[in-house]
């Protein structure tokens, strides 16, 4: 065949089907590539042995029993927020308000612990603060959901702005409760009586948090995969018109799904205050509402997959902290490595979905024949 049309040097086609094995080969390959690029960056900029830097990152997460527990705690909290966002994303409702919904839970729990501490038994206080936190989270998610269902407002902007509103309300209450006055901190709440603090089970401080996260994750997996409601919300996500045609009340599904998001975020806020930190700061949520978006996307909205993607992110951030301690590097250096690795991981998704074809040289073609 005579080639009258010039073939481009590179062209891209969508892959048809790809086996799980191939998928994972591409993913692992991209991580390996990322590690090599990071190694080069490390050697050039810091003159350190990249392998000892990697070893120290590993140390930061798995170096001792306590570090493993800290890792699990961090992972659990991040996982819960990621899982909370998932049903909304499956419905193509871009909930960027996981942070704000968590802060609503944080504020509700703190309010209960400060105002009711010492007035009701600790067990009762725990239950009251739980209910308050769930309700607060749900309410914070309900507002944008209602406006979207009723007036078709833009949920991306709405939920995003609700984060800042929540943070500012928290800042306001910190000034009311701060101790000492003027320090901008409320310190540990009920530090002597420990009223409203979650019990430590099995002698492990973070075990309860981890258990709750596991339960929530598995429950969400089942909810999305095997229940009618889970199916409904994915239909709404595929096409609202189709959903309406088959008789699904779209508005109701949107509001119901967002309330579920809010409840899980509220629960996370409750765990943060009553379970781990026992204080309230404006930064207690630590950007997890946004990080959770990435965790959920990387796992293709599969709650069980989020354990892996969440682990990657938590591992990287703890590693970044550890190398700054071990080598006296600025924390920003760890963040650079995290950025490179995430770039490759996200990039690998492109290679899973698309295939790149290079123009074959004529000589090679001739040889092939």
């Amino acid at each position, binding site marked *: 065949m005579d080639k009258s049309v010039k073939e481009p040097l590179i062209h891209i086609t969508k892959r048809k089907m790809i086996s799980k094995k191939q998928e994972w080969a591409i993913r692992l390959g991209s991580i390996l590539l990322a590690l090599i690029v990071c190694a080069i960056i490390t050697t050039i900029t810091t003159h350190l042995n990249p392998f000892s830097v990697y070893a120290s990152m590993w140390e930061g997460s798995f170096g001792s029993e306590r570090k493993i527990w800290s890792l699990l705690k961090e992972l659990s909290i991040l996982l819960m927020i990621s899982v909370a966002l998932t049903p909304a994303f499956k419905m193509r409702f871009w909930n960027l308000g996981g942070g704000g919904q968590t802060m609503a839970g944080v504020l509700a729990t703190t309010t209960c612990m400060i105002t009711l501490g010492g007035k009701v038994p600790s067990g009762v206080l725990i239950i009251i603060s739980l209910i308050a936190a769930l309700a607060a989270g749900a309410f914070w998610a309900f507002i944008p959901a209602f406006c979207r269902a009723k007036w078709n407002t833009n949920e991306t902007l709405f939920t995003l702005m609700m984060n800042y509103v929540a943070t500012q309300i928290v800042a306001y209450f910190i000034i009311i409760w701060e101790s000492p006055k003027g320090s*901008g*901190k409320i310190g540990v709440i009920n530090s002597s009586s420990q009223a409203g603090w979650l019990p430590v089970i099995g002698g492990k401080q973070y075990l309860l948090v981890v258990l709750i996260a596991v339960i929530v994750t598995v429950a969400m997996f089942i909810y999305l995969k095997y229940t009618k409601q889970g199916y409904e919300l994915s239909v709404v996500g595929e096409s609202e018109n189709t959903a309406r045609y088959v008789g699904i009340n779209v508005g109701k599904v949107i509001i119901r799904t967002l309330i579920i998001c809010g409840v899980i975020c509220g629960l996370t806020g409750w765990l943060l205050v009553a379970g781990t930190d026992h204080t309230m700061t404006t930064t207690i949520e630590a950007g997890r509402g946004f990080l959770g978006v990435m965790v959920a996307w990387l796992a293709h909205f599969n709650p069980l997959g989020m354990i892996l993607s969440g682990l990657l992110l938590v591992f990287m951030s703890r590693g970044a902290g550890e190398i700054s301690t071990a080598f006296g590097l600025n924390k920003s250096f760890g963040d650079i490595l995290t950025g490179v690795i995430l770039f490759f991981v996200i990039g690998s998704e492109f290679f899973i979905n698309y295939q790149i074809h290079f123009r074959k040289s004529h000589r090679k073609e001739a040889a092939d024949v």
Partner: protein
Amino acid sequence: MKKFLALLLSLTMVMVMLASCGGGSNEGSGEGGGEGAIKVGLITLHDENSTYDLNFLNGFQEACEKTGVEPIIKKNVPEGQECYDEAMDLVDQGCKLIFSDSFGHQDFMLQAAKEASDVQFVSCTGDKALVAGVDNYHNAFASIYEGRYLAGVAAGMKLKELQDAGKLKGDKPKMGYVGAFTYAEVVSGYTSFYLGAKSIVPDVTMDVTFTGSWYDETAEKEGANKLIQGGCDLISQHADSMGAPTACEEAGIPDVSYNGSTKSAAPNTYIISSRINWAPFYEYAITAVQNGESFDTNWTGTIDTDSVQLTELNEDVAAEGTADKLEEVKAGLKDGSIHVFDTSTFTVKGEKLDSYKADVEADEKYEHETEVISDGYFHESEYRSAPYFDLQIDGINLLDTAF
């Protein structure tokens, strides 16, 4: 495909093995601190980009080198549960003594101290050790109000020079101050600075604005600009970024800095800076732990212990004779002939104070329970190391008190 996977797996294994070897050698070199060298930990809120944390880090390195202990430093640790986690991790790594540098770390340090009773914990700038009743939990601070007073004297000299040359913006000298929060540590700081200046120019007034954060470069710069536009002839600050010094340099307004010299960033406006030199305290505490001795629950450094220092005086900006005047006032502070909070030098709501009860015991009651005025002056940092001067004296105008 299988081949590729196998290759990938084996490569990963090689990487992991190499990585673990690297780890081994790294640990080995870490023990080079000498036979039986103890490990000492430091937790900081930010890193060396913050003037405040840098001051701690420098003092810590100096003391560790002098005493031959092995330092382990955790930077960027927030004032939350992370502080407890990191403190306990330092315990796991074998630290016998652990310091934290921020006020908000104290509750979490205390929590760790209760759990690891064989390790000494020091919450620097904290105020709860006095009432906590936990043997291995300490607080430390320095009589930095004396340093600020001296810095105020340098500011006063500059204002006097401007006044004599007719270069004041208004008819009376006016200073501006960028503070972080509104609690005693900051109040004590700006009041002593003001009184230092007032001792030179009695008709001086001062505007204070707050940022609500220890490190917020934008807010600090904006705060300084606001004060400059409000007619201030000189600026000082108690917040940790380069915000205020930079704003002053851009506007050509003299600045009295804090935590360390900012001359390199503001060569035309920087006058002087006061700072706490933490090295003597670190050395004292480390030596005590090395010898298995106990040390003070509340340690207050002074000019005598070299804990309160002035950094280099910028002769290009400072008024003539400042260095001599500073020596004179410093001698007075040392021999007790000058007291910073001398009640004859200030009034509260027009009245001279003879008695004041301060909240020295930082418990959950928030009672002002301790009489702190006697012999004609307010006894700052004598009953506990952290400042407790929280009076609003006349001549200082708070622009905003939201924090």
